[in-house]
């Protein structure tokens, strides 16, 4: 099974996402921002980083990359797409996900080992978890506060589209402690913390993040 990892100018965690795909047993395919071709991949990861420096609103320029319309179309057709950190911001800017990510309420960039609760196992990226599972994975961002209007927040809650929530201290002022959400169909997931940094005991705080990648691969095989 092939999982594409997009590199935008300024992407940083693309190699990490590709490693996670490989360790989960999949084939990672490098996708280039300027190439409007998904090269036959079965799923896509938009990795973390500072695309185009994030000097403008995070993700605001990346959404106009040549590869994005192809990804948006594929996502609307049901292809699993995971946006991590900057990738989540790009998904919001692309209107594949509602809401936005704003500057942390304490105004500093923070890199933490964050406890997160998986709220739904019914997305292709979380099917390997059980709702209620608590995991510890890195969180690292300066603009990770999830915001949306009240109606959107209520809709996300009532439709079971809050995928993950911060446990303990809210690290960035996200409304309702939201760490990740999905679209109505569930195939597009945006996540602020970094599961790709928690795939090996040697280099991460845990291996709790690996299941995001094994989940999607398992789903692709059985599909």
């Amino acid at each position, binding site marked *: 099974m092939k999982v594409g990892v997009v590199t935008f100018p*300024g992407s940083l965690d693309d*190699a*990490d996402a590709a490693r996670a795909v490989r360790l989960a047993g999949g084939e990672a395919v490098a996708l280039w921002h300027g190439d409007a071709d998904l090269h036959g991949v079965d799923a896509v990861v938009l990795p973390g980083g*500072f695309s*185009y420096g994030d*000097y403008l609103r995070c993700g605001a320029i990346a959404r106009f990359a040549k590869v994005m319309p192809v990804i948006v179309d594929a996502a609307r057709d049901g292809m699993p797409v995971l946006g991590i950190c900057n990738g989540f911001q790009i998904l919001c800017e692309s209107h594949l996900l509602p809401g936005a990510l704003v500057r942390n309420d304490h105004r500093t960039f923070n890199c933490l080992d964050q406890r997160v609760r998986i709220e739904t196992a019914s997305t292709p990226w979380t099917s390997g978890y059980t709702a209620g599972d608590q995991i510890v994975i890195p969180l690292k961002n300066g603009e990770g506060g999830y915001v949306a209007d009240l109606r959107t927040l209520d809709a996300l809650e009532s439709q079971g589209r809050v995928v993950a929530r911060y446990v303990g201290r809210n690290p960035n002022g996200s409304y309702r402690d939201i760490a990740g959400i999905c679209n109505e169909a569930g195939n597009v997931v945006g996540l602020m913390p970094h599961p*790709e940094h928690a795939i090996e005991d040697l280099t991460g705080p845990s291996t709790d993040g690996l299941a995001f990648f094994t989940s999607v691969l398992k789903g692709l095989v059985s599909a």
Partner: protein
Amino acid sequence: MSLIDTVPAAISSPEAEQPYAALGLKDDEYAKIREILGRRPTSSELAMYSVMWSEHCSYKSSKVHLRQFGEKVPANASEVLLIGMGENAGVVDVGNGLAVTFKIESHNHPSYVEPHQGAATGVGGIVRDILTMGARPIAVMDPLRFGAPDHPDTGRLIRGIVEGIGSYGNCLGLPNIGGEVVFDPSYNTNPLVNALCVGVLPADGIQLAKADGPGNKVVLFGSRTGGDGIGGASVLASATFDEDKPSRRPAVQMGDPFAEKLLIECCMEIFAERLVVGIQDLGAAGLSCATTELAAAGTGGMDVDLDLAPLRDPTLVPEEILMSESQERMMAVVTPANLDRFVELCHKWGVTATVIGTVTDTGRLVMRWHGETIVDVPPRTLAHDGPVYDRPYARPEWQDALQADTPDRLARPATGDELKQTLLTMVASPNLASKRWVWEQYDRYVMGNTVLAMPEDAGILRLDETTSTGIALATDGNGRFAKLDPYAGAQLALAEAYRNVSVTGGRPIAATDCLNFGSPEDPDVMWQFAEATRGLADACQTLGTVITGGNVSFYNQTGSTPINPTPVVGVLGLVEDVRRRTRAGFRNAGDRLLLIGETRDELGGSEWAWTVHEHLGGLPPRVDLAAEQALGAAMVDASNGGLVTSAHDLSDGGLAQVLVESCLRHRLGARVTLPGDPFVALFSESTARALVTVPAGDDRLTSLLADRAIPYAEIGVVTTGESLDLGVFAVPLDELNEVYEGTLPRLFAHR
């Protein structure tokens, strides 16, 4: 009429007044330039000489002392060293066809003027040095020193500097794996911002800064040249701050980490296809430095059309373009055959590339501005033949009195209550308290190869996922020790970094140094510098850690008061198998505690004397390099053999600090019987010591230590209890945690 000063104009107007003094050149230096050229320099040439002959670029005051690093070479240096001092960074062989390059540099002065940009561009500059060697940068570290925590400017500086380092390094995608944060009033208004970068490259892929091959093209690529940082590091960092001078803000460079990220990725592809003959980054002295150094190291000549350099500000004049220290720029020498592919790769990454010149065999660096010759110089005279000063130095007359004022007269805590109070005061002091507030602002995970990072003793990076080989790095320095005895102080900095690397399982093989001192024109300071370099060179030779490169930062003083002399040393170690690294922090209740090394009554310059009594006097702890080597080797073997469950080096704050940190890490208690005098046992800063844990009933480490006649004492056990019980007193972990973690956020967090 042309407003540009040309070579013909210089010849025809020999007596024209020139502002050489304002550019920092002395009378005799200006006379030497006239002698070299056989005429007065043009204003462009004057600009180039002024920056290239500045203290920062020419090392004119330090050169005579730095030579020792080339003379006192350790016996093992020939096995590890691929490139030594003199290039942008040294390169060492780490086996399996891989090489590692690393270097530490200062960005002290700009960081005081503009903390965020000053610190950010300090990271950017050292990263480009590493990149220039042909390496992919893989991590950064930042040893930082600030004034007294309650000094009115310290908050502005630490917030801005930490944010600047974070914003640049995080956006560049480089994990920050260690460093230091130290407070001392001697750094009031003179913060020290040192930045280390490490990179990895194929051993046969080293790039050099040389313009070889007449006819080859000189390409300027990366960001456009702007008006920022004109004379930044070269002039700013080569003079003392004086209160009555105007603000130097325009001399600080502005960083664009995104541009540098593109430059890195672009260079990686360029190197992989072996498209360059030579390459140089534009750092201090910008285009002046890159053109002269490339030409001087290569065939010898270069023709440059300076008006072709892409500008961010079209009003810039040649002198400004030559002196600008705009960031994120590089210069490459490319054969005509490779030029199209080179430009194509730059285009792929959105990097601007412009051919601005050609390599020649004339022995002259000639620059034109819209056809008129504005520079015609022998490049060596700028790059290598700058002035060299053997500045006068003498042991300061106050040195004896300082050393005679020992801490013996200071009141020591005696009762359990007094000891407990002392320990809590120490743990809460900004120097010993948790630095979490700082390192949580840095990304330590990116790239996925960080095996150890803060708050461990050393950072460890995996180099190869299949073989699990890696490297360990630590930086250390102690300005108080160096003030008391600069020879010993420099050795203690090296010894501590060496120890930090070896307790994690890294075998130390090389070192880099950042020598932060006051004004070299002060004989007291110059003596400190001479002693420190002598001490460091001697110790590097003994410990087998060759100095591969580094940086000197003088003029760290305000008015006539210099900072404590602060040699900061970074040590690189090899880790055979990163999966066997040793971490700090107690992990298992029931493990036995072994204190390795000898504890003496050594409190001169200690954290205790300073924190409790604001006392600095006497002598620093004794240097024992043989003991450091024995301890280091034992720790590496213990790590490889899986003999220890944790290890932590003893340094600032002594055993007390290590026990506190080890307990708090995973919330495990300890029951300890202090050997000898409890106060000395807890707070002495004797060197060559480490605290390790071993499983109950496992005697492999104790027999190894006994076999090698390394002294150790079994001092207690790890417990599941909620307190650190030292017999004479006990402290709940909650109480320790509150003071340890609370200090920095309370002082500096945004409210």
